[in-house]
């Protein structure tokens, strides 16, 4: 399977190079790669929000969207909903409020969505399946995600509305404080893998013991904190004080309508999917199989369970994406001061202490100790 895809990829590269020349050929291939990453991503965003409504409906013992079908097929009840929503948003009027800063008002959604899409350039989906295999991949991810907050702040300020401004202020304070905990949590896998290249970080989690080799076991506190900080970074429940429907109407995007609103929506969901992808790569071994035990590799019937591939990566992402929805349906919104306390007084001290533990584990007498050498002795 993987060999055929690699061969097809090589054929495409050869055809592009021979028809377009040595400069335009690789450029065209990169463009093709970008399309191959972004189109599935946008489709996932479209259908993830349908799944979100289904899952929350299921948790709350009611039906989610079940009216709009595709070609009237009863089996596909509800499947047309995202398309109908997108068409509705496309055809709605763009309202630019009086007294708003027009240029920044229109720039804000662009600034929100650009880093959310751009960061996917460094995310590896399978061995060598990455648009740009940069050495400082983790840093690129951190830099890109830290820029998402501009969209929110600019939207809040340019709207010239008090609700929007309050939402933006809350969001800025929240994102800046949780970014520290998140950054510290990301240093854990970096120390364990001794590399910032995301592909190398996944490769370092492979071995003879399947999922016991993954970094989530030695870095468990960082793993939990990374996911919770990810919830806060994307302004998701229960940390959605920036939107706060019951107090700020819709927070920073209250003045946006139609497609500009849809772009904010897109950015938020793309960021959620990114958090899920990063958590899978850094802590759950990316595309590696959980059953990749040395003893299973030679048994004919179960051999296929040990193969690495993009299906494992997608499965792990689905776990996190479901967790996002589960948390949303289960917990009430945090109060603002509780949120700040959690970020500064609980998460940051825990991450700093655990980083010291991880740093000690990577050093010699411990690194080759019986159990620790599973993760650090490589």
């Amino acid at each position, binding site marked *: 399977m993987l060999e055929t895809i690699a061969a097809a990829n090589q054929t495409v590269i050869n055809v592009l190079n021979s028809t377009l020349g040595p400069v335009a050929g690789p450029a065209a291939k990169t463009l093709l790669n970008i399309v191959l990453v972004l189109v599935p991503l946008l489709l996932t965003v479209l259908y993830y929000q349908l799944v979100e409504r289904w899952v929350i409906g299921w948790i709350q013992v009611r039906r989610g969207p079940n009216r709009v079908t595709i070609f009237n097929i009863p089996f596909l009840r509800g499947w047309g909903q995202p398309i109908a929503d997108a068409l509705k948003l496309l055809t709605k009027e763009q309202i630019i409020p009086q007294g708003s800063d027009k240029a920044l008002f229109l720039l804000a959604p662009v600034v929100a969505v650009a880093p959310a899409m751009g960061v996917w350039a460094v995310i590896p989906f399978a061995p060598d399946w990455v648009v740009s295999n940069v050495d*400082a991949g983790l*840093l690129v991810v951190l*830099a890109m995600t830290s820029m998402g907050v501009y969209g929110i*702040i600019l939207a809040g300020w340019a709207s010239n509305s008090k609700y929007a401004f309050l939402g933006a202020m809350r969001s800025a*304070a929240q994102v*800046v404080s949780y*970014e520290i905990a998140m950054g510290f949590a990301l240093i854990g896998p970096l120390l364990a893998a001794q590399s910032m290249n995301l592909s190398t970080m996944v490769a370092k989690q492979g071995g003879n013991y399947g999922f016991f080799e993954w970094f989530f076991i030695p870095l468990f506190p960082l793993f939990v904190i990374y996911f919770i900080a990810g919830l806060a970074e994307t302004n998701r429940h229960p940390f959605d004080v920036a939107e706060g429907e019951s107090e700020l109407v819709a927070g920073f995007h209250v003045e946006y309508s139609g497609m500009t609103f849809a772009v904010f929506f897109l950015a938020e969901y793309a960021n959620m999917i990114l958090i899920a992808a990063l958590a899978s790569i850094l802590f759950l071994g990316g595309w590696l199989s959980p059953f990749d035990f040395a003893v299973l590799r030679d048994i004919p019937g179960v051999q296929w369970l040990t193969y690495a591939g993009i299906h494992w990566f997608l499965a792990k992402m689905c776990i996190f994406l479901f967790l996002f929805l589960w948390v949303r349906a289960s917990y009430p919104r945090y109060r603002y001061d509780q949120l700040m306390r959690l970020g500064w007084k609980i998460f940051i001290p825990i991450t700093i202490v655990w980083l010291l533990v991880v740093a000690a584990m990577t050093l010699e007498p411990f690194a080759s100790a019986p159990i620790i050498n599973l993760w650090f002795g490589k």
Partner: protein
Amino acid sequence: MTFQAILFYLFGAVLVAAGLAVITVKNAVHAAMFLVLAFFTAAGIWLLLYAEFLAITLILVYVGAVMVLFLFVVMMLDINFAKLREGFWRYLPVAATVAIVMVVEMALLLTSKSFGLATTAAAPAADVSNVKSLGRVLYTEYLLPFELASVVLLIAIIAAIALTLRTRKETKYQNMGEQVRVKAADRLKIVKVKSEVDEAPAASATSAGEGSKS
């Protein structure tokens, strides 16, 4: 002209234009956004110099953290532009002198031979990691200055907190520890009250059931 040279001049032009816009636009938020653009193009130029770690760190630290806080403050400022422009002509001679001195100094610096800027460094090999070489230099040769710089930063943090920290009497705080420790028994007391039973006379016992229903 190579592609890299074209990119360099493009980034340079955008950088200079953005830098000029920072000091000329009237709106403080627009100025901050132009500064963000300037940081971005500067990071682009650093990337052209194979300094990818520094370029990404510039975006991460300055764009992602410093400018966000800056924007945060600038948005809440109430600036009176007429008052700001009042002293423009009066201070112009002093400001112009300072500017000329700075330009001359920079020109001297850039043209002097001791800084070695006339020759450009060769492109590093593809397998040399920027991060690794920078880390090695920082934590071996320049360990002491590096640690000193971090201590200075720590002192600055503590000083800033000490200068601005004051407990205001009118602000109401929640005591988190107390809130977390609270038990249901502290807030809610369930009192068993005997339900009142209509002590109906024994004679009309048959109609009592109907009476209570109505």
